[in-house]
């Protein structure tokens, strides 16, 4: 007995294998196929005959996937590159903003004559919170942007991707903790640092942090760029 829905599902599966058609593209072709089958059945064709004629009329699958590849691959590449640039820009903005705020706070405090460790620590604490809030929001928007990359949601379900992200997060948290600890715990034998030295130290640590975090993000994006995804580009 010929099961039309089963055959259409099989046909969908074959199209998805080509990896150049997105699920929305396949949905559209299926809608066309069903309409054609309906029309052919009005001409007294059986389900099976109508299905065969309709799939034949849609054209050779290899040719079809080639035509879709011309549009989708190019579109996807451009999208990925644009997201990557957005990511780098976000990173630059975040670091510059965070650096500027913390540097200004410390220098402002020094110029106002606040030199005590405790009061400086208090001002430093305020700038830290500000930095944290900025990083959080920028990180949040960056994640939202990343999730919009077609195929990224699928990618994120994979164990290796999750491990990569977890490692990146661990490195980030660990470095922050180490930096904070180094900043606040007086190490015996070391001369107490003045404000400028503190600023230089803070800058060095934050630069190191980002130099670890950024490459991980870029590598993730590159992995995503290399792997073709079957649930291609969403059309508006």
């Amino acid at each position, binding site marked *: 007995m010929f099961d039309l829905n089963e055959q259409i599902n099989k046909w969908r599966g074959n199209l998805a294998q080509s990896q150049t058609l997105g699920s929305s*593209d396949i949905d559209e072709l299926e809608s*066309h196929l069903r309409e054609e089958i309906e029309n052919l059945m009005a001409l007294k064709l059986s389900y099976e005959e109508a299905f065969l004629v309709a799939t034949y*009329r849609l*054209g050779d699958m290899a040719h079809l996937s080639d*035509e*879709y590849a011309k549009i989708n691959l190019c579109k996807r590449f451009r999208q990925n590159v644009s997201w990557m640039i957005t990511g780098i820009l976000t990173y630059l903005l975040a670091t510059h903003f965070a650096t500027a705020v913390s540097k200004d706070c410390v220098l402002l405090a020094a110029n106002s004559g606040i030199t005590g460790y405790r009061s400086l620590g208090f001002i430093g604490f305020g700038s830290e919170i500000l930095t944290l809030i900025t990083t959080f929001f920028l990180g949040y928007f960056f994640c939202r942007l990343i999730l919009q990359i077609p195929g990224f949601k699928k990618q994120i379900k994979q164990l290796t991707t999750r491990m990569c992200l977890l490692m990146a997060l661990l490195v980030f948290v660990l470095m922050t903790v180490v930096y904070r600890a180094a900043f606040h715990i007086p190490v015996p034998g070391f001369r107490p640092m003045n404000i400028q030295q503190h600023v230089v130290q803070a800058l060095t640590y934050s630069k190191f942090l980002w130099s670890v975090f950024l490459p991980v993000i870029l590598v993730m994006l590159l992995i995503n760029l290399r792997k073709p995804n079957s649930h291609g580009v969403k*059309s508006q």
Partner: protein
Amino acid sequence: MAISKYLVAASATPLILSILSECENYGYAIIKRVRELSNGQMQWTDGMLYPVLHRLEEQKLIQSKWRESKTGRKRKYYKIKKEGTRALKEQRNQWEVVYSTLRQLWENEPCLT
């Protein structure tokens, strides 16, 4: 008489834009309309229409939207945009030049000497 595939490919964009300039429409109906208007002489491979539609959409000449029809079937409807109307006008001028040139040549008496 079957139209050559090169001519079919070249005329796809003005045909699609012209049909969409009448009213918004979906893939299957566009193919049907071309078939009817050309008395079945312009045969597109059905599936090939969609990459063309997507390319036009990428060029921002048309826009698309999934919608449910009255019969309950989900269809992707395409609608022409302002930019598309402008492109159609341009294409129309070009095709009219080609057409009138050929027409003049074919209307002339053949030279027998």
